[in-house]
């Protein structure tokens, strides 16, 4: 008798299966790909501290490519680049901060932990729909012969375009304005070349976030160092990308050709190209987190934080999955999903989303995306350009000049500054 069906062996699903299995429940973990992570595209940094409690010392065995010890934020225009660069050796030792990893490896590893705890992993199996009786989810249908599977609780962890959450009426019809498209290239480079170009050693890695490199389409770029490859790509608003009639791979080509980026990727060979939708609607556009007989976790619930300087998803997926698995038994026993919702509200998962609920609108606004990178770059260029024999212009004059050139009124700058202060307080 199956107690819990978890659909999707990504970070949320495997975390849920791990906790439910540890609680002694009979868990079936369904995965549509031939192995966990095989269907995934991810270009980001995984912040694994959420695992400290359930997998102590996880960093010793997780399939990490590099530990991020250097984080840069770059503002780009066609000809300029301004970088804020930070590095800390603290992030290069246990318990670490974030790591680059290939999700095919990471997801397999985490799903392996769930299997070790007693969950049964079934791969190459697609959950095609829900079995609903008397208004309650009582199982799922799969694409296998004789494929109905019943259980008192279904945990939907089937990703951003969750068919199960949609079928249950928990996730509104897909709205392009709340989605971004991430496209990523993995470029092969010898390890020593990466170390030299990025100024790192051993397992140290770099996370570079870039703004102003997407032809004015709201979004940004990224570059992460793996052991012997780079992950380079962009994440852009789906709605604006469609309207701009630009192909996403052209944006990646632009990024790689930018004078500030080209020297990093020179001579690299394309190994892999992937694309993926990302839910970036924030707190105000999360899915309903439960219906009788079903809990929704991770990307399926829209639990992905895209708040400017914080770009996190896997830790929110794991956090929500852990909560779902941890409270599976009480949800089954009581028939009420309140413990799950309460656990999320009491953790970083919903608290961060709630606190930063205004971030998506601000970060993806036209001024932040299209005007401020140029304004800041022009201001800094003005400050650092030696204009002799003319005297140095004052900073305020340079600011006014840069604002005018980039179509920004100082009152807008002030208003956005205040808005940013409120969002990130």
């Amino acid at each position, binding site marked *: 008798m199956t107690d819990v069906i978890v659909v999707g062996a990504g970070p949320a699903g495997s975390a849920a299966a791990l906790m439910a299995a540890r609680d002694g429940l009979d868990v*079936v973990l369904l995965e549509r790909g*031939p*192995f966990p992570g*095989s269907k995934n595209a991810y270009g980001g940094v995984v912040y694994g501290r959420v695992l400290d409690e359930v997998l102590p010392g996880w960093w010793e065995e997780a399939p990490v490519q590099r530990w991020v010890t250097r984080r840069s934020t770059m503002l780009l225009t066609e000809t300029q680049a301004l970088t804020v660069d930070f590095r800390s050796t603290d992030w290069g030792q246990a318990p670490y901060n974030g790591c680059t990893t290939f999700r*095919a490896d990471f997801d*397999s590893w985490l799903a392996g932990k769930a299997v070790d705890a007693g969950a*049964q*992993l*079934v*791969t*190459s*199996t697609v959950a095609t729909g829900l079995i609903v009786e008397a208004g309650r989810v009582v199982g799922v249908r*799969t694409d*296998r*012969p*004789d*494929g*109905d*599977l019943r259980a008192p609780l279904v945990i939907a962890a089937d990703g951003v375009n969750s068919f199960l959450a949609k079928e249950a009426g928990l996730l509104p019809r897909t709205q392009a304005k709340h989605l971004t498209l991430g496209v990523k290239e993995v470029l092969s480079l010898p390890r020593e070349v990466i170390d030299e170009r990025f100024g790192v050693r051993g397992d140290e890695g770099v996370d570079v976030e870039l703004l102003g490199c997407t032809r004015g389409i709201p979004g940004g770029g990224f570059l992460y160092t793996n052991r012997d490859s780079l992950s380079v790509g962009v994440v852009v608003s789906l709605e604006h990308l469609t309207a701009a009639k630009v192909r996403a791979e052209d944006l990646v080509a632009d990024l790689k050709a930018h004078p500030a980026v080209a020297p990093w990727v020179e001579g690299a*060979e394309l190994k892999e190209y992937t694309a993926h939708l990302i839910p970036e609607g924030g707190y105000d556009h999360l899915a309903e987190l439960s219906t009788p007989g079903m809990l929704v976790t991770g990307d399926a619930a829209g639990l992905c934080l895209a708040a400017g300087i914080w770009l996190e998803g896997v830790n929110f997926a794991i956090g929500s999955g852990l909560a779902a698995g941890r409270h599976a038994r009480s949800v089954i026993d009581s028939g009420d999903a309140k413990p799950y919702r309460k656990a999320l509200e009491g953790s970083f998962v919903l608290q961060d989303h709630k606190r930063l609920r205004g971030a998506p609108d601000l970060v993806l606004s036209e001024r932040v995306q299209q005007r401020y990178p140029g304004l800041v770059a022009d201001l800094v260029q003005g400050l650092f350009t030696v204009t002799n024999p003319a005297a140095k212009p004052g900073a305020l004059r340079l600011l006014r000049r840069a604002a005018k050139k980039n179509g920004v009124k100082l009152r807008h700058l002030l208003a956005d500054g205040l808005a940013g202060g409120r969002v990130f307080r």
Partner: protein
Amino acid sequence: MADRLVVVLARCTDLRAEVDPLSGAITRDPRTAAFSASDAAAIEHGLRIGSAWGARTLVVTAGGVECEGPLREVLSLGAEVRRVPTRGSYVDELATDERALAKSLVAAIGGRPDLVLCADRSADRGTGALPAFVAHELGVVQAPGLVSLELDGEDLVAERRLDYGRRERMRVPLPAVCSVEAAGIRLRRASLPASLAAATAEVPVADVPVPGPAVRVLGARAARPRPRHLPAPTGSSRERLLALTGALLSHEPPTVVGPVAAPEAADALLEFLARNGYLSEARTGWTVQ
């Protein structure tokens, strides 16, 4: 007939192995180990024929523990499975003595099969000689390169490709070793209950000698053929383009046939092929009337 045995010798390997373009090093991912389309076709033929005969179907794979996942999937289809352990690396496998491998596989079968099925070629390493070695070990006939395999009563009727698009249909005397192409057949999917039941099943490992190497490998590196020296092209780029495309040359105008009935259209087509040398009697043995 309850004692009949159908055996499938299927190769399981990473079908998407990475090859380092610089060093030629091959990285195989155990998670993507699977049966090739031809191997899957052999398994499906084995299941169909085994079911029709009321026979046991045994799938034997030579490989490492990475083969156990795909073998469990076969187990959930109702076949028996067995694994023959092999030596580790890809280079070791390349150097394996194919005849010794055939001996180990036959030993792992542990009985005299009525029919042995193989893929017509392996996805990653094969010489194509294994079915012949297996047939030799068993002392039975071999039918290679089959595109279909059907039962006609108790007989096995096979079809295979010949040159010039022709096919050959033949009755295969049993016992036999048949190697099949991935043509017109697809491996069935296991039911969910069967898949769940087989998920943790143990895959028996045959207690047979691990096939050793046929050759001693001194080193392995990427193939780097010498560049061919080609003379520089002559003439202008326009002239070369014209020569390549034949843009300004006169051509035989297209032949318009019809509308005519099918026999006349076939005659016209045959006449065209004969006129252009594709249907000479010497090449095909046919005479165009």
